[in-house]
């Protein structure tokens, strides 16, 4: 890794939801701030900036990660996916997003982006996940509106539909 000057802005390039992006930032800039304020991708939200609430979760090279605990310079050359990249087309929702809508699994929606990014990665890795596994995974996210019950229901429903889609 090149040595970076703390007081200078550096050019950062990576792939965001399949498209190349580029911007400049000091080494201390958080990935969450870079996505939101430099690139204008405001779908990723910031809830605690100490890694507990999970609202800022994005996928870095397929794996979920807290954007608030990642520096923008760390993702140089990486493949980043955020909530803006989940829907198959404008005006359409993914199976997971659709399940959230059907089950009223969001209210204010502020924590939702991070939850979707974790679940999206998890259901791809573990398509047969049961409720216990999903509750365990979701314990990395704080939601203050829903009481989690509808989120679990949506995740279980999405898992079934994703399996059906995979087998179709």
């Amino acid at each position: 890794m090149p040595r970076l000057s703390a007081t200078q802005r550096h050019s950062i390039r990576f792939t965001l939801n399949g498209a190349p992006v580029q911007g400049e930032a000091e080494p201390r800039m958080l990935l969450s701030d870079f996505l939101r304020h430099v690139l204008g991708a405001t779908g990723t939200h910031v809830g605690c900036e100490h890694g507990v609430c999970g609202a800022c979760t994005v996928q870095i090279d397929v794996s979920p990660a807290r954007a608030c605990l990642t520096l923008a310079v760390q993702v140089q050359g990486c493949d980043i996916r955020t909530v803006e990249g989940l829907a198959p087309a404008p005006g359409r929702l993914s199976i997971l997003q659709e399940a959230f809508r059907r089950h009223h699994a969001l209210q204010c929606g502020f924590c939702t982006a991070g939850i979707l990014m974790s679940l999206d990665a998890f259901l791809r890795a573990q398509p047969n996940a049961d409720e216990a596994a999903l509750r365990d995974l979701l314990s990395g996210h704080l939601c203050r509106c829903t009481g989690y019950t509808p989120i679990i229901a949506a995740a279980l429903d999405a898992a079934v539909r994703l399996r059906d889609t995979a087998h179709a």
Partner: protein
Amino acid sequence: MDSPGDKWVGQSLPRFEDAALLTGRGRYFDDCGTPPGTLHAAILRSPHGHARIESIETSAARALPGVAAILTGEDIRATTTSLVVGVKAPMECWPIAVERVRYVGEPVVVVVATDRYVAEDALDLIEVRYTPLPAVTDPVTALAPDAPVLHEGLGGNLASERRFRYGDPEAAFATAAHRIAIDVAYPRSACTPIECYGVLAEYDPGEDSYDVFANFQGPFSIHAVIARALRVPGNRLRLRTPPDSGGSFGVKQGVFPYIVLMAAAARACGRPVKWVEDRLEHLAASSVATNRVTRLEAAVTAEGLITALDWDQLEDCGAQLRAPEPATLYRMHGNMTGAYAIRNVAIRNRVVLTNKAPTGLNRGFGGPQVYFALERLVQRIAITLGLNPLDVIRRNLVPTSAMPYRTASGALLDSGDYATAMETALRDGNHAALLAKRDAARAEGRHYGIGYTAVVEPSVSNMGYITAVLTPAERKRAGPKNGAQATATIQCDAVGSVSVHVASVPQGQGHRTVLAQVVADELGLRPQDIRVVTEIDTAKDAWSIASGNYASRFAPAVAGVARIAAQQLRARLARLAAPLLNVPPEDVVLANGKLHAQGNADNALPFARVASSPHWAPGTLPPEDSAPLRETAWWTPPELTAPTEADEVNSSLCHGFIFDFCGVEVDRITGETRIDHYVTMHDCGTVLHPGMVAGQVTGGFAHALGAALYEAHSYAPDGSFETGTFADYLVPTSMEVPAPIILHHESPSPFTPLGAKGVGEGNCMSTPVCIANAVADALGLHDVTLPLLPATLAAHLHGAKPNAPAATPKGERLLRGEGQARVNAPREELWALLLDPDALMAIVPGAHGIQRTSPTDYTAEVTLGIGPVKGRYRVALALSNLDEPHALTLAGSAQGALGFGQGRGHVTLTEADGATIIAYRYEAAVGGKVASIAGRLLDGATRVVISQFFAALARQAAPQAPWWQRLLHRLGFGA
């Protein structure tokens, strides 16, 4: 649904809000961009619970490139007025500390810079010198004559005291078969929305006006408070809210002091100023529910009938009385008898100030505090009299035949069939099976218990209830206050499409969807045809003081007034269509996107054509109907009258009913409470959207479960705040929150347009005490204090641990330790080292420059890392009790941007075989940011730092030989 007889209201439609929120296209405060030239603010906050500000040194921060302005309390005071306080008391309430700090997290300096990173850099360069003052955090202690006083003008810490008497409580107690009492202390908790506060403020000096964009939630009575603080009339404060809000639960009402602060900063800078709160700021200093100490006594017959209640409530509002406080204490005033018919009530209400964050709106607002006392007491009555707790509840419930029922203290319970709802819950919630399960579990020696609660859930607050804090004579002088104005505007544009605006400012409750359903029903349209706007712009929209999203007022008040506005619009549409359809207006039917004649669907006009006609051809219309269709309706319920001469207060319009019961098991070893079975029966009147009602119930349940089991805003006795992260303030996750069984019994409210009542807060009132009653039942506890942490219950199960370290007061951040080291040097040499600044510089971990200010006093700059928090501290050390070369006392204090500490260590030097045993004992107290966010790590970190010090001392006194000499020595060569 296509047939005209069906209603959209009552269906769980997918929400119109969701597509945007699920795809990252929501527009929350920080997503909405800023005007060019916007500056960014960061706030330096008090690390002390109580201290005098001696000086604020800002020159280094001002010199930092990018810093535009640095504002202290004096600067803010120059352009603003103290926030108005809701009681008649001589005290001021500034949004930033003036001369003194009174709670950890209180703003002290605002830095405005070109970006947030630079603003935070500048905070580190500001040096504030404080003289700490004694702090008081306990409400009872705060009333003691020798307690530290927060606001000198008050003369003490009691901000308000009122007594109330309804019926003849003295006679009821005098003749009672039993007097049964309970003492409870309800802790502080907060609903912590995941989005924190955000404010963007601009000032126009030409018009002396402010334009503010903030995720404020109402009530908009606060608009008047802000305008007054900014010294402008209301029409020079334009307050706007973003389309989406990341949760509030009442908490975002508390952004208003920061609106004043940032507006003043924008004025000082001449540029727009934006501030986004971080999580530590939010936990320490946003808004939190009150803690309350209550003694409640009941006069009870032998059969368990409660004939009188005597309430003594001591409300702790923290360091300031911030509008609308002390409303938490009075919101329930009409409902102090809960779901019970009790005619004799005495109440003493006192409000006290302590060195903790100011309180404000929080889901449940006053309900949890009241019901925790009342429903714990109902369980105690059952236990004392040997009755079934369900029978005590049954005997006291307000009878259905008495509805609408006027309570002793003045509330008018609108509707309900409490007894039927309760029996239905017991049947459909499998109560019989739960009893059998408890028996079986207990037979196995497990700790299983059942709890019950019956509560009424008030909604749609009377804007006049808070005036009950004033005496009738004071109220007379101030003029009557009452009502709860709700408003909705519906308009048809040039192509006849329908837009709705309400001043409801939702934070995720799906208002847009429900309003579309309500209006679609009246206008014969589909919900997706209707566009709803719920954000507010006080310069352009209809609004009043009751506007906003609080007191569970959406379904009963806002959705109701939207229906009234739609009915007004429908009447106008019917008048426009009647001559064209050749029928009288009352025979015009609106259905399926058309207006048609009653009984003849073929005699029809498209909705859009009629709705747009005043735009295109007003000349063809009668003058009284030629204006474009735009109807603004206002509604305030006549039942919400002002408090009476006798202090009777109809504090809320609607009263839902909740009956909860639950089975819990407390783990025999860990003390962990597991909710095994939870049933919650709601009567919230007409259900407008079942999915959203379920969401409100499960969400409120999760908040309540957190308050019952995990969450507490914790302060040390010196005022240090100890729960500044989500790793310290424990919010329940998907692992802890089970799915409650939700049941409904609908008794439509006769007082609301749609028959709906509020449902958003009830479980925050019923669930904490229901769980507490169940745990008390499981363990046979007499007193229960929340949160029911495993450690607390384990202590009850296992008794106090033998050989446990001397107990420090709960939550105190006092660090104690001792140790010793053996040093291969004579003690005279060690003594000399301890008194030599150059030597000390080498051995104090992280020391930069020790200076000797007197033969026994040193100062130093020290860099220390504790957990995630690395900071620079100014350290002062003083040596005393010098007993050369045997012993000395080292007293030290440290102060830095991240916190402060003080400690005292006693060091003894003993000779042993030519070496010296250096033994130490220390006691240290730590506060400030480091205590708030790294409290868990402090004991360990302190031990490490101190042992490093003595290890370094030993190295300095007896430098270790090179490694090859040590190796040879070990192998037996050499001396």
